[in-house]
């Protein structure tokens, strides 16, 4: 009975997935067919609150990296809860590549084996809050390291692993709200420093779940269909429904060819800008993003950047995309910039490191109920 029911459920899932796949494929194909004709200059409102380029898709050219000084920042975090406390370990590292003719000359900041930060939460909080807190602490460490490395060395492009905007939804009453506020201040400091040092600040979001690009597209699509006969066929499919069900990377994986990027768009919508005041106004309008598809069999990566003053965002996007494309097109199915691959390896925290810290605490404190492992971590039968 149970097996029959599962079989039916799976059948339904398969049917749904296949249908979705067909719809998305059809939608992408039709959109791709009209790309050459679409000129977004015809929608001046867009520039203010959405896409800031004429064309939805742009070709990216690789550039010679020789002589460039590129830094990658990544952080690691491990947390574990005990009976009365939670332990969070974080570390972050900056990897500096000075690209020469044959291989990169590599330096690390603060060190090739960065120090561990040990944080202990003594107050009872929810599991979700601990998870948010862990991510937040890692982000703080990463941004602090980014600020530090800008003082340490002259850098042309600084690539953060992840967003360059504080993404955390922190409730005002939350015990960690203050830490969120601190993170926002660090980001602002990073923007200032990058601007002062003439460094391109870039964020590389590996597995973006964002729908901002498709939302913008969804808003202008009726007008586009009206204006461009090449898109009329979109009326034959339920494009509104599809737009709601597709995230940016899913759509752009189908639309972009390798070596192409999406149009540059504003990272923050006007609504976000109004409702969230985590960063000051002077920076809100300088954050942009685009999606870059570096290789054939990997999904596009969301690239965010801080646009320098008095430079058109598309010009900055041209520079950023060329560098990122050159750094991340070496594997047909994996398109993360090499400098972030190395940073990820250096920032990884092993479970054993947490075990070492725990053992030291246990050794010094002695048997204490606060340090009891959770039941899930000490089941007598596995």
């Amino acid at each position, binding site marked *: 009975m149970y097996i029959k029911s599962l079989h039916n459920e799976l059948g339904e899932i398969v049917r749904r997935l296949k249908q979705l796949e067909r719809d998305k494929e059809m939608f992408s194909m039709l959109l791709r067919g009209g790309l050459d004709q679409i000129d977004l200059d015809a929608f001046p409102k867009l520039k203010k609150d959405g896409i800031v380029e004429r064309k939805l898709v742009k070709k990216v050219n690789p550039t010679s990296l020789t002589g460039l000084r590129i830094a990658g920042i990544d952080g690691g975090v491990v947390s574990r809860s005990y009976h009365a406390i939670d332990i969070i370990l974080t570390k972050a590292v900056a990897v500096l590549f000075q690209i020469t003719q044959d*291989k990169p000359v590599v330096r690390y900041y603060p060190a090739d084996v960065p120090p561990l930060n040990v944080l202990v939460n003594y107050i009872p909080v929810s599991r979700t809050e601990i998870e948010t807190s862990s991510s937040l602490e890692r982000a703080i460490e990463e941004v602090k390291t980014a600020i530090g490395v800008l003082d340490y060395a002259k850098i042309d492009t600084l690539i953060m692993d992840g967003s360059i905007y504080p993404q955390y939804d922190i409730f005002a009453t939350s015990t960690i709200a203050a830490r969120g506020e601190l993170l926002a201040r660090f980001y602002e400091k990073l923007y200032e420093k990058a601007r002062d040092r003439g460094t391109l600040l870039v964020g590389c979001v590996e597995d973006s779940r964002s729908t901002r690009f498709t939302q913008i597209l969804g808003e202008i699509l009726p007008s586009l269909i009206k204006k461009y006969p090449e898109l009329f066929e979109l009326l034959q499919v339920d494009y509104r429904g599809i737009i709601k069900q597709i995230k940016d990377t899913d759509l752009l994986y189908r639309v972009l060819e390798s070596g192409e990027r999406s149009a540059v768009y504003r990272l923050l919508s006007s609504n976000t800008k109004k409702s969230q005041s985590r960063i000051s106004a002077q920076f809100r309008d300088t954050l942009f993003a685009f999606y870059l598809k570096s290789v054939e069999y990997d999904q596009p990566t969301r690239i965010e950047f801080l646009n320098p003053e008095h430079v058109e965002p598309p010009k900055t996007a041209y520079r950023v995309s060329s560098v990122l494309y050159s750094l991340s*097109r070496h*594997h047909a199915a994996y398109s993360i910039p090499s400098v972030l691959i190395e940073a990820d390896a250096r920032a990884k925290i092993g479970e054993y490191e947490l075990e070492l810290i725990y053992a030291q605490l246990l050794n010094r404190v002695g048997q204490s109920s606060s340090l009891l492992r959770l039941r899930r971590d000490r089941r007598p039968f596995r």
Partner: protein
Amino acid sequence: MKEPIGTVIAARDSPTPSEFKLVITEIENSVPLRKGQFIAVESADVDGTLIATVTNILKTNRYFESAEAVKEYERSAGHLSFILPTERWEYILAEGKPMGRISQSGRLERVTFPPGPGDKVFLASPEMLLQVLGLDPSGVNLGQLLHHDVPVTLNLTRLFQKHVAILAISGAGKSYLTSVLIEELLLRKPEQGRVAVIILDVHGEYTSLATTSDTDTYKFSEKTTVINGPYIQLAVPKLTSYNFASFQPNMSYVQIRELNQIIKKLRSRSGKTGKPYDLNELIGMVEQSEMNPRTKEAMMGWFYDLENTRLFGVEENPSLKANIRVGEATIFDLREIISLRKKQIIVNYLINRLFNLRKRGEIPPFVFILEEAHQFCPEGPAISKGIIETIAREGRKFYASLVLISQRPVRLSTTVLSQLNSQIYLRITNPYDLKLIGQSSETIDKSSLDALTTLNIGEALVSGSAVSHPIFIRVRKRYSPSPSISIPLEDVAKRYEKKNT
């Protein structure tokens, strides 16, 4: 002790008293440690220094772990190191096998407690190795311990008293090593204790020791006598009926008894006349005897057969008693003797006589070196096999030592092989030989056995009673001139053609 080269790590099921792993922390040398080297571990919680051998070395690098990723990145970039700092992720792991722990009294004790994770690892010092391996500074210097700056000086008694086997494929350096061994014996001073050296040289490979040359700094030629095969004569009066029986293995017990009676009569007559008898007289006596005609006929046939070898006479040449001298080498050069049977008869006679002389104390303690030993004491029957087995079993008590050299250990008598307590192996590749060595030597582990197939010329594994632990060595350069048989084939071929056209 110098700077540490590594640290013991905690790995799955290790460290234990029988194995441990270490990570190399020394970064100045590109090759800081090699397989087969000896290392020392200092533990905080256990007294004494643990000595171990490196049984394996593993180089690893996280960037090269995924075949698919390496292929992909290298297809695009040429080499991973062009885009990633691969060399920064390279590290070396080694596996160590404890040999023992040097106690405070200086003894090497069995390891019953493992080294600790975090313990520092050092290269074993020469002093430690001397102690741990049972080397003797005034012993026989065979060369250098492989990958260590330590001379391998083997104690004379430990090396020879229970006999030596030198085993390797053809061309691996057996004769070279044996020459070094002979040189060492000839270089010993009276106060170190000297022995006589007798070499049965089947191919004339050692005669160069007797060659006078400007390069003979150590005057080996003055201490070496070469006896050419055709001049060797076996003294009939010194042979018993059992000696003859060993030359003619088909002789029955009754025939031996009859022959014994005849020899008694001949000896009695010889004692009265003072004239020694020869093989013809012995044949004459057999002919005149009243033994069963069929027995007589068979026996006479055998003696005529022996007579045809032209090896027998009334006197022994050379006189072994007079020629075997302490600190000197006597080489029996048999290269001109083609018949294996004749060679086996000579070996039988020589070893019998030497052993008897030694038992009576009429010659000094000796080392008898036998080339192509599988021809003289094979697993199957051979004229010389019995006496070699006897000396292998009993020689130790009379300080008569054997050095048997062979390229086919599997064809050697297992009885003899089991009595050769010191073994020196050079390169061996035959799987049957390797299997036999693995089965017959309990001190050699699989790793060392595997290494035998890849030894370079001049590298050897010494095991058994000569050393406390099997060791790999690089054989030292010989001091004496090399034999002329090392002339290249091209030169010999050219010479032949010139002579025959």
